[in-house]
């Protein structure tokens, strides 16, 4: 893979609509050839940021730089960014080939070169045999690939994707995720993707930036974000999580003891992290798949007795809700393959998890 992409950065990006602040003071740097996803619920400002990058929305303050050059005031047609729009925005009066040729045509590229590039772009997305069709004669997934070809055909400095997979059904979405990822490796360009779908963000990206209420909450590699969420919002938004609210009772190097109700929990901490004050409140995020069912005689650093209140079969796993007297309802996910129990409502179970299973997180209200 050759990295031909460009680096994009923005500093203090803010967008206000009257008294409403859509984006507040977001700074981010996207590396050359990186696949960055802006992830957030609707209204988090992720699309506004993308529109600022694309040039359709002028930021209230802040600067956007491409390879160090300030492009904040540049109109969209001068930015040379490829963009895949939500719903694709294919031109309905043009064939697939004409759609893909559009960016080249408006750049007044000669016919021979244009045709060669269009063919190469259609080959890239495996749509060469559909060149003469109209967009409405294609399936959703094919339209999406035409939009990709159109956005990549003119060798753009970077590729912007606005909810590129949201219009597709689940199975197709999974397929195209893989394709998009492979395409990114193949073309080696900088991709910036916007989505509200956390699975898509985790599957596609080199790095994810999570936004909420117009602010950047946390950024990092998908695994780092999933394993080490900094706030309750991040832990909750990326996958599912149990939250345990406790009070710090003892603090040692790399480990704290918490009381949650009448239960005592042991929680590992990063060695170099700040040590919490005794008696202060602490919030733990505990992923459902990190809780195990303990068999007779087994033990774990943290244990809780409870009773299954509801359960569902998800194919690869069982999802249980276990009501415990001290910790409230805990969500637990078990692999179905050789599951230690056959779940049934009212069944009494013993849950266990290690001290490093949980992650201390900040409450977002604070």
């Amino acid at each position, binding site marked *: 893979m050759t990295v031909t992409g460009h680096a994009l950065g923005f500093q203090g990006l803010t967008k206000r609509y009257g008294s409403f602040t859509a984006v507040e003071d977001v700074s981010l740097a996207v590396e050359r050839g990186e696949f960055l996803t802006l992830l957030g619920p609707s209204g988090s400002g992720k699309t506004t940021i993308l529109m600022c990058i*694309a040039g359709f929305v002028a930021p209230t303050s802040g600067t956007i730089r491409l390879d160090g050059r300030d492009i904040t005031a540049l109109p969209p*047609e001068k930015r040379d960014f490829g963009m895949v*729009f*939500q719903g694709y*925005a294919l*031109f309905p009066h043009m064939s697939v080939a004409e759609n893909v040729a559009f*960016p080249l045509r*408006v750049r007044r590229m000669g016919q021979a070169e244009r045709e060669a590039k269009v063919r190469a772009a259609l080959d890239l997305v495996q749509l060469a045999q559909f060149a003469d069709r109209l967009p409405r004669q294609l399936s959703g997934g094919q339209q999406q690939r035409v939009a990709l070809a159109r956005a990549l055909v003119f060798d753009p400095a970077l590729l912007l994707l606005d909810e590129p997979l949201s219009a597709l059904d689940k199975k197709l979405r999974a397929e195209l995720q893989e394709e998009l990822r492979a395409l990114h490796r193949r073309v080696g360009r900088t991709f910036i993707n916007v989505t509200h779908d956390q699975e898509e963000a985790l599957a596609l990206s080199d790095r994810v930036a999570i936004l909420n209420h117009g602010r950047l909450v946390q950024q990092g590699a998908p695994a780092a974000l999933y394993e080490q969420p900094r706030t309750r919002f991040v832990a909750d938004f990326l996958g599912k999580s149990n939250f345990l609210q406790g009070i710090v009772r003892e603090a040692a190097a790399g480990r704290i003891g918490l009381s949650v109700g009448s239960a005592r929990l042991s929680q590992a901490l990063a060695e170099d992290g700040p040590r919490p004050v005794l008696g202060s409140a602490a919030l733990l995020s505990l992923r459902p798949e990190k809780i195990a069912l303990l068999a007779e005689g087994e033990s774990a650093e943290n244990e809780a007795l409870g009773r299954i209140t509801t359960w569902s079969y998800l194919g690869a796993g069982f999802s249980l809700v276990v009501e415990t007297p001290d910790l409230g309802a805990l969500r637990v996910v078990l692999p179905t393959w050789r599951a230690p129990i056959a779940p049934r409502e009212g069944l009494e179970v013993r849950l266990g998890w290690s001290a490093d299973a949980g992650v201390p997180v900040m409450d977002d209200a604070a």
Partner: protein
Amino acid sequence: MNRSWRSEIGWFALILPAFLLMTVFYIAPILQVLAISFTEPQPGLGNYERLFTSESIHRVIVTTLRICLITTVLALLLGYAMSYTIALASPRARRWWILAVLVPLWISVLVRAFAWVTLLRRQGLVNNTLLEAGIIAEPLALVWNEFGIVVGMVHYMVPYAVLPMLASMREIDPRLLSAARGLGASRNAVFARVFLPLSLPGLIAAGVLVFIFSLGFYITPAILGGGKTLMVAEWIGLQILDLIRWGLGTMMATMLVVSILTTLAIFSRIVDLRRIFGSGA
């Protein structure tokens, strides 16, 4: 099969009263009038022969076509500019624009024609203003000629041009325009390559509508033409009402109906007229 056949009969029964009403009071009299063109003054195709031989009929037809074409082109240009502005305006501004387009439709065509006469005549507002400003020395002949007719007709036709074009422009997904700019197209290129082609069906529909309406214009040319420039409708009126030549008048009326239906038939093959005029949407 049987059931659907019965329900079909049911539907036809529902529209039967309207159908009878239309036949008795509308279609039958028109057919009767058209039939006169073959029977007066004597049975045969004599009236239609005049179509090829009469110099004055040629003149009327050529004048009508010329005025209609000029009117159509001007109404489309003006209407397109207005529709474009309205389609891209904010919702609030759009409401006022649409009101401004529709209000003239509610004013009598007679009133509007006379209003143009007072504006355009020799001592009218336009000539007086130009004279006082010293731009012209002699009053311009702005009315009682083809110029006056075209002014009045364009004014009448612009709303009919705006409505179908606006309908088709409002169907254009604004994201397509953003997409085009994002892909590197200048504003002019976005218009020429995306907006114009996508609004073309509306433009064609508006053209057909305005042209067909113009063909049968009666009051506006009669008043603003001052009887010197004859268009087909006024010519028909003249034949029937003043010269009592029913055969000739109804022959021309038949030709008018036939040419309008032909135009519609041709264009209905090019664009989906039903969609454009708003039914079945």
